Structure formats: C-alpha cells, structure tokens
C-alpha cells in the first residue's frame, strides 16, 4: 500500500515549524504560492525566519503578510520589487536580503534535493554575485561555484495531489515548487484538489510523492493576479 501523507489541515501540516528556521516557499510572483501555509505561518507567529522564495510577495499578499508581521529576518530571492514594506525593512537594516540569479536559485534548490552539494554556473561571473566564490574556466569560459540550498521546511502549492504525495501543477504555477519540494527536510504540499490514489496518471506526475512528507487541501485560494494584462480583441 502506498505511504499516506495526508494531514487534515494547515495547522497539522505545519507542526514542528519553529522560529529561526529556514523555509522554502514555492511560487513566482503571486503565481503558485502556498497561500494557506503562509496564512498559517502568520497565525502561529513564528519569527526570525529565513525565507527562500523567488519573490517576496506584495504588501498585503503572499510573503508580504509575513513581512508586515516582521516574521522574516532574511530573504533569499532573485527579485523583490513590488513591496513597500519590504523596502522599508531592508533599508532600515531589519531585513537581510541575499539576491541570487533566478537560474542559480532554481538549480541550487534542485541540487539541494538531489544530493549535489555544489556545481559550476556561468551566471553572475564578473558581478558582485561572484564575490568570494571560486572561479574556474571550462571550455574557455569562466564559471563560479554555487552551493546547494536546503530548508527545514518547504511549502509548495500544487493543483492536484494524491495521498501518496504525488503532485501535478498547472501551467506556470509550477515554477519553483518542484525543486523546493525536493529540497525541504520536511515538505508540505497544499493542493487545490486531493484525488483518490491511482487517479493521477503515473506518467504525468510532476513531483513524485517521495519528495512530499505532508499534504492537505487548501481551504481557500484567492490566486490574486499581480499584473492583469489583456489585449483588445
């Protein structure tokens, strides 16, 4: 019988999350973020968090909610605009920010999950990102050594999942979720729909359940759009 990862609520899913931990949160902008886990992090009020997430939400949504409550002391991200509170905390020194090229961030999470402690990439060579990092030439081109990232908890959001923790994402809401699922010591997946075991086609699962320790159905999804853009038909 497949191993069951189902928990009944965000509260149960976040058991063991403590102040001072390093968390990964999937999503790109506000797309594919673990809304219910973020709500629960706000509710339990853990502090001094290091958050690894491509972005930092907006003022009143996504990680912005944790920033408003001053629960985060360090962000590891590739792009953190769109957030006044973030800017204020960063400029005042309350918030430490480690900016990483987006591809390096993605690959460092994957490496963390895949047991690869370090790898070479050309991204950032010759820039301040390379400061203090080993440089090596491959095929005539300089590369820098980047290290793997792991986290105490990873929070990811999927479209569908099953009790074994298998996940399927929708469209570009996939983004960082699969790599972060791999890199969490404990990975919590929140899903829009929990389907019966065996219903997901084993050929089309994005994240195998082995990477997921807990799964629950999110109570409510706002799925806010950051830049609503339409064409005139």
């Amino acid at each position, binding site marked *: 019988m497949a191993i069951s990862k189902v928990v009944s609520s965000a509260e149960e899913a976040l058991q063991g999350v403590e102040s001072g931990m390093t968390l990964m949160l999937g999503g*790109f902008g506000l*797309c594919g973020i673990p809304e219910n886990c973020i709500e629960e992090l706000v509710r339990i009020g853990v502090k001094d968090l290091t958050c690894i997430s491509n972005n930092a939400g907006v003022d009143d949504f996504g990680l912005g909610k944790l920033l408003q409550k001053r629960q985060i002391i360090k962000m590891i991200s590739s792009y*953190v*605009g769109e957030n006044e509170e973030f800017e204020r905390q960063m400029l005042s020194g309350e918030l430490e920010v480690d900016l990483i090229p987006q*591809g390096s961030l*993605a690959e460092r999470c994957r490496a963390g999950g895949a047991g690869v402690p370090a790898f070479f*990439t050309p991204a950032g060579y010759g820039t301040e990102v390379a400061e203090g990092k080993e440089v090596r030439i491959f095929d005539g081109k300089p590369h820098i050594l980047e290290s793997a990232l792991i986290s105490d908890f990873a929070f990811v959001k999927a479209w569908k999942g099953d009790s074994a923790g298998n996940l399927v994402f929708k*469209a570009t809401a996939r983004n960082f979720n699969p790599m972060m699922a791999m890199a969490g010591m404990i990975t919590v997946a929140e899903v829009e729909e929990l389907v019966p075991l065996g219903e997901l086609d084993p050929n089309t699962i994005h994240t195998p359940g082995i990477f997921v320790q807990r799964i629950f159905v999110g109570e409510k999804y706002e799925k806010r759009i950051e*830049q609503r853009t339409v*064409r005139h038909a």
Partner: protein
Amino acid sequence: MLDKNGIAKRIAQEVRNGWYVNLGIGIPTLVANHIPESIDVEFQSENGILGMGPFPVDGEEDSDLINAGKQTITAMPGAVYFDSATSFAMIRGRHVQLTVLGAMEVSTSGDIANWKIPGKMVKGMGGAMDLVASADNIIVAMMHTNRAGASKLLPACSLPLTGVGCVKRVVTNLAVLDIKDGAFHLVERAPGVSVEEIVQSTAGDLVVPDEVPKMSI
C-alpha cells in the same frame, strides 16, 4: 529617431526562422508584435513556458498562467509548461537562440549593467544574470541616452554589472551598433538621425564606417 515600438520593430528583423527567443520586460516585450507571419519562432518566458502567446482577451485571464513580468498571458498550440530548473537549463544550456533585454549601461567590452543602482532600492536581478551569461546571441534594446541626456554606451560601465563581455549588438532609438574589438561599431542609423548625432551621444569608442546605411523599418 525611433520610439520604443520602432526599436522593437528593428530588433524583430534580427529574428530568424526556427529560433527560440526570450524577451525581457519593457521594450523587448514589444518585439513579439513585429515578427513577420512568415517566420516561426517560439517565445520562452523563464518562469516556465515555451510557446507564449498574446495577452488574453478580457475575462479570459488565468492566474496560473503568467509571464516573467507577472502579466497574464496565453499559450499557443504546441506550448509547454515546465519548472524553473528546466527553464534555466534551456537558458544556461544555450537552447534559446536569442535573448533581448533592456539595459542601463553597456560598455565597449560588451559588459552590461541593468539591475542595480547604488543608493536606490535594489529589486534584484531576476533571471537577467543567467540570461546574459549564457546566451550566444544577446541584443540590448534601450534608449541611447538616459533621462539626463548622458550616454548609456560607455567605455566602461559605472553601475554594478549584470554580465561581462556578453553583449554583441545594441539597438537604440538612434542606431544599431555591434560590439567587437573593444569598441562600438556603427551598423545602421535610425531614420532622421545623423551620424554626428550618434557620435555625440556615444561615450565609448565608436567606429564609424564610410557608409552608414539607414535602417529600413
């Protein structure tokens, strides 16, 4: 002199049939509007789609389907979604034939600065460092001068770098320029723009050939 759409239109002429293209935010995004029907290209957005289509019509926005600028988009037939690691595998692995992005400064050695102004709020580099470090073919789309009228084509960048020695071509409101052998090389001038004006507006070494054709756009 070109407007933003003119720059995008000129860059569209650089695109070849069968290319995968990554367009940055701003002027580069406009390039998609000017690709001729006769050419098959696919647009990659680094947040995880290949085969990006136009913006949706009103009412058909899908919050799960956005581009790297966080704008709602659509997908073309044959499109595919993937995760961020796979997306940058495409970019870092040089499977994307052309990257078009904006810049604050470009230097005669092909350096580019486009992510950080000291003393101002730093938003981050996003995918720009990966894109410029990997693409074989990088075109910078920008205004020739900044709002204060100072040249953005410099002997050396003064701002923190995004990438080193990577830019090969720049298309501005005034001209098309190639970067090689430590200098800008004037390739074309925009309609209504004189060579003198380009020389005036270019702070880095500029090689001007005897004949400077006018862009045909």
